């Protein structure tokens, strides 16, 4: 592919398809995640990264090598990676004495860091430690956030948005009712975030809606919030901007009243009411050659008689 001023012109159909898949689109596809390790990692961090990778397959890449960078100080290396692998979400795990068992959840906009949250793992139970049957990867999970802090505190609001972005799967128009198996439950209390992952068993109840029984499977985390790096309000608003083409088109000249009747509006040109034809009156029809003069006729009649 020849490059000229940053514009790459594809020479083959395959490269053209590749570029099109990476170009910005009106309706975007699912976001990819890159999971990477820092300069030093502990056993807990590596197992935790692997577990999250298995939760997020196939929309994730797990890098095996260690990357000696500090995302909070210098994010250029992360941005470079995200550009190369076309991933807009990332998870960076590291371990040092000052910040043990550290997870950095982050997301990008236009390959530049938008938000980053540093969460420390206090307690971690991995997938392999809980011996139950698992469900196939790629199931869309149900997400539940508990705790009023998720709606009051600004940091937590952004964290909630990031966690939704991270863990929701691809956007689907319909979902198979029997396939709703995975539930991710996030609870906040006193600066701690508890993440639990359950398998949902649909039991028979008397009516159509089933009764739920939960079975704990999957990784369970006890996070504590450490540092954050939030995007400025302008950048955040810019990232949310939707293209105009996605807005539903309003139908003009149609209105509804309280009772549900729909009214339409018809615009017409100005009518000359004098030329308006109402009913046919044969006597008043204009005949060829004759001048209808209503004043003269009776006079004529009088004279004659």
């Amino acid at each position, binding site marked *: 592919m020849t490059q000229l001023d940053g514009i790459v012109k594809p020479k083959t159909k395959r490269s053209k398809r590749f570029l099109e898949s990476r170009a910005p689109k009106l309706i975007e596809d699912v976001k990819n995640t890159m999971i990477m390790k820092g300069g030093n990692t502990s056993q807990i961090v590596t197992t935790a990264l692997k577990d999250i990778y298995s939760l997020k397959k196939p929309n994730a890449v797990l890098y095996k090598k260690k990357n000696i960078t500090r995302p909070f100080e210098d994010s250029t290396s992360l941005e470079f990676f995200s550009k190369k692998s076309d991933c807009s979400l990332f998870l960076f795990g590291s371990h040092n004495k000052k910040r043990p068992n550290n997870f950095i959840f982050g997301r990008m906009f236009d390959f530049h860091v938008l938000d980053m949250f540093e969460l420390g793992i206090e307690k971690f139970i991995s997938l392999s430690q809980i011996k139950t049957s698992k469900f196939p990867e790629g199931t869309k999970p149900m997400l539940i956030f508990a705790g009023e802090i998720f709606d009051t505190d600004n940091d937590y609001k952004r964290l909630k*948005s990031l966690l939704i972005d991270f863990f929701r799967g691809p956007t689907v128009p*319909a979902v198979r009712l029997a396939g709703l198996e995975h539930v991710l439950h996030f609870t906040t209390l006193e600066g701690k975030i508890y993440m639990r992952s359950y398998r949902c068993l649909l039991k028979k109840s008397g009516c159509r809606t089933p009764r739920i029984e939960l079975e704990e499977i999957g990784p369970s985390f006890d996070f504590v919030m450490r540092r954050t790096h939030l995007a400025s309000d302008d950048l955040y608003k810019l990232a949310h901007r939707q293209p105009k083409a996605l807005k539903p088109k309003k139908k003009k000249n149609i209105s509804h009243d309280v009772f549900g009747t729909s009214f339409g509006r018809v615009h017409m040109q100005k009518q000359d009411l004098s030329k308006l034809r109402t009913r046919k009156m044969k006597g008043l029809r204009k005949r060829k050659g004759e001048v209808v003069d209503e004043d003269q006729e009776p006079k004529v009649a009088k004279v004659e008689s």
Partner: protein
Amino acid sequence: MLVFFPAPHVFHCEPTNMAACSVEELLAKAEQEEAEKLKSISVQKELDLEFDVGNLLACDKNRIETRDLREKKRNDFLRALARDNTQLLINEIWKLPTERVEEVIVAKLPEQTTRLPREKPPPKPKPPTKWEQFAKLKGIQKKKKTNLVWDETAKEWRRRWGYKRANDDTKDWLIEVPETADPNEDQFAKRNKAKKERVAKNELNRLRNIARAHKVKTPGEGLLPKAQQSKDELAKAVSVAKTSTASVGRFQDRLPKEKPPKNSGKKRKFEPLIGDFNSEKQKQLELLKIMGSKTPKLDITKAVNTQMREEDREEAAARRRKGAGGKGRKGNTAGRGKGKGPKGKGGKAGGGGGKRRGKPGKH
């Protein structure tokens, strides 16, 4: 199918009508059964949850008691809380319209209500190409063409364009030499050359459309190779090539009969210091006359119009800057990212050059 009554009715049991009493009993029993069934799926909460069914998301804003989260009972409490919340979410999902798709019952999800940031900025609409502009102007619609065309010579259906296309000019094995053509001319080569020129022209137009879309500057008239170039275009190309040296063409040799380029002198002319005294005197007197006269040199309306235009432009720029102030962060970082690219390359080249320079220094 049993009917569910919203509230218990109080029936007045008439002593004479035994059937009425038994009906009342039946209804009460039915009510009880329904309530029991619903008990299994109903959950009591202080505040209702907020649902975003499009995302399979539920938010619980109820208060969580701190004592419930003590170490030993924590997991059980969380599990019970999760079960309740999941039950409510499932109740919501089961209210959605369902349809059957290939023996599987599927619920149609509504639009997502949570707004999440995009991955990349929305795509900018591409400017129409030269042909698209012309077609819009003339009202030409795109006609859907078939993929295959009947090839008479090969007696089969062939592609309209591409590999082994129908009616391919260059693939004729016999070409009659027309009467007006030179007998020594190679007709096959002529056809091949014509095709190559058409391909090159198409490629040029495609690149020009891309350049127009990306607002990239292209070389001007006459500087791109063409089949037939006019005398002016050739002259311009020659002069541009001549001045594209380090000393701006001052030491370039000229051909014996080549004329110096016209219109290449200074764009502004100044009078010599000691020249025609009379004309200088006249000029100065005229200047004094204009300065002394009362008529305003300034055209008021023109000045006012220019001022208004300036103000409009400033306002527009300020508005753009305010919008760019929000975009400025993105713009800045984008600039930074782009700036790093060439700088990095320059740095590497500089480092490589430095290394090479170091070695002879050692000796």
